[in-house]
């Protein structure tokens, strides 16, 4: 399992509040039995409407690895197809004012950190990236900072999630399965399990 302590790379500023997962990946692209190919469809309708001017289409951001967003990003449907599409496009970490809860949980399970910053810092970062798209950002989960050239700001992430990234335990399946005896003991103490097996 891979530890995620720092993520470095060029940024991509995507402005807007309440960007939902239907916009990140419209439902028609959910007609699939694998996540393959979703990267090309990320923000499909928004990109068509902006006719090449969407941040995910602009030439200066094509090497981006860190997405900088605003408030309540990833709200709506639980579809993991949304973070999968963003990740398969090339993004390795997200920085934003706030994230919807299920979206955040999906990102954790995929090993993609989503950290929060103040509204002011999000705007500053978006402006800096727009002005200097080639300059890399560094997200450091040990010092809990984001740095871009001379600019540094604190980032926030729940301590348990930070631990999962830095210790490399963000993929929980192995740990969960290893507790099968304790899982069965918990189940055996739940009245409704007994009623149903009676």
């Amino acid at each position, binding site marked *: 399992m891979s530890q995620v302590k720092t993520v470095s790379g060029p940024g991509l500023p995507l402005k807007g509040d309440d960007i939902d997962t239907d916009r990140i990946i419209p439902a028609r692209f959910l007609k699939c039995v694998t996540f393959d190919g979703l990267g090309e469809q990320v923000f499909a309708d928004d990109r068509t409407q902006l006719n090449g001017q969407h941040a995910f289409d602009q030439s200066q951001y094509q090497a981006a690895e860190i997405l900088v967003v605003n408030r309540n990003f990833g709200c709506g449907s639980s579809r993991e197809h949304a973070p999968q599409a963003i990740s398969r496009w090339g993004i390795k970490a997200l920085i934003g004012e706030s994230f919807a809860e299920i979206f955040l949980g999906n990102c954790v399970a995929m090993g993609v950190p989503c950290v929060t910053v103040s509204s002011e810092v999000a705007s500053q970062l978006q402006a800096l990236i727009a002005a200097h798209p080639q300059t890399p950002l560094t997200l450091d989960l040990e010092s809990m900072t984001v740095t871009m050239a001379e600019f540094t700001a604190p980032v926030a992430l729940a301590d348990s999630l930070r631990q999962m990234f830095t210790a490399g335990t963000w993929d929980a*399946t192995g740990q*969960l399965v290893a507790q099968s005896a304790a899982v069965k003991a918990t189940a055996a103490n739940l009245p409704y399990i007994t009623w149903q097996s009676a």
Partner: protein
Amino acid sequence: MSRGTLFDKVWDLHTVGTLPSGQTQLFIGLHLIHEVTSPQAFAMLRERGLAVMFPERTLATVDHIVPTESQARPFVDVLAEEMITALEQNCREYGIQFYNIGSGNQGIVHVIAPEQGLTQPGMTIACGDSHTSTHGAFGAIAFGIGTSQVRDVLASQTLSLSKLKVRRIEVNGELSPGVYAKDVTLHIIRQLGVKGGVGYAYEYAGSTIEAMSIEERMTLCNMSIEGGARCGYVNPDSVTYDYLKGREFAPKAERWDEAVAWWESLRSDADAAYDDVIVIDAADIAPTVTWGITPGQGIGVNEHIPTVEELPEGDRAIATEAYQYMNLQPGTAIQGTPVDVCFIGSCTNGRLSDLREAAKVVQGKKAAATVKAFVVPGSERVKQAAEAEGLDTIFEAAGFEWREAGCSMCLAMNPDKLQGNQISASSSNRNFKGRQGSSSGRTLLMSPAMVAAAAIAGQVTDVRKLL
């Protein structure tokens, strides 16, 4: 930190242990799966050589992609056919119960589990679908998960989670005629915002909620997620028990008293501590309609679309985006907005009581000639029960189409879609850009009775005029 709430009690009873990260390993009592978010999870199990630990605690159905006109197999849409086939194969291979089309048990996952008595108080329930919060109506802790987490539940019947805070939302008083559970939830989201619930479980309480039927409570809990709350619940009471009694998966007679005693013990204590409490007066709630592109952009049917100046600073950017996308003018009345399509259905409002309320409005009337109106029952059982009461006849006589069960135009993964920039009056839960199958399609969310009224008038209208 909350203490003594139903959420705390159920969380503690399902805690397997604390993981090294500090997160809780939580046992999931009921796992529901469907065709859209499960195939990749099964693929991950195969890649890792993992088994399904408790196959009898997972139930599958097909809802998102099913056509609602002809359901003959193979489906015309080859991708949809591929998805249902994958689910059939996965369920067969792993020994999971699958309620397929034509079984009499198929329907929207959040409609079928309650109607069969699978959803019970005190359970933890997870599903790869954000509207899993619906099941909280029974006093269950129920929430949506992503596909990697579906894999975790299949493999271990548990999830790695951080505990939520608990906000009590107390609604008191009697709802006026023409005001429904849908209006209560749209009103709450309007008040608290679409991200107000992030980090919280919502406990709905107060005399208004206590007076609601279980189906109304499902509508309310269903849209917790639109307010940012991953889960919402109502403490179980006699309404809950009366609904459950006799359903096939409910505790049988010899266990019934024991079950009720256990459920009662899980209710939030009178002196429970909450992280936050909000009080709402039912008298302030009007039939509510959304005008924008988030479920928080709702107004009473007699109000005007807010101008930028009338909105708090933080809501202005998204409002500006909404005026443009919706092509609606700030400051104008929402009532009188012409609609092209009227959709009654979804996990929010596709149950028998929803169809009854809508049928009352349309009975003896005709849908406007300019409107395409259709009703999609939430499940095969809802459809059958509605037909037994003659609701199909009422709708068809009024010019509505009567369809087969599924998610349909709530998210338009099947052939039911808006065309171009059509505008819909919809009893579903999301008015996001492009949500109903056209990248420029527009959605006005409202109660099923309000959708019915819009169909008759051909425009947004106050249902109270038709009652």
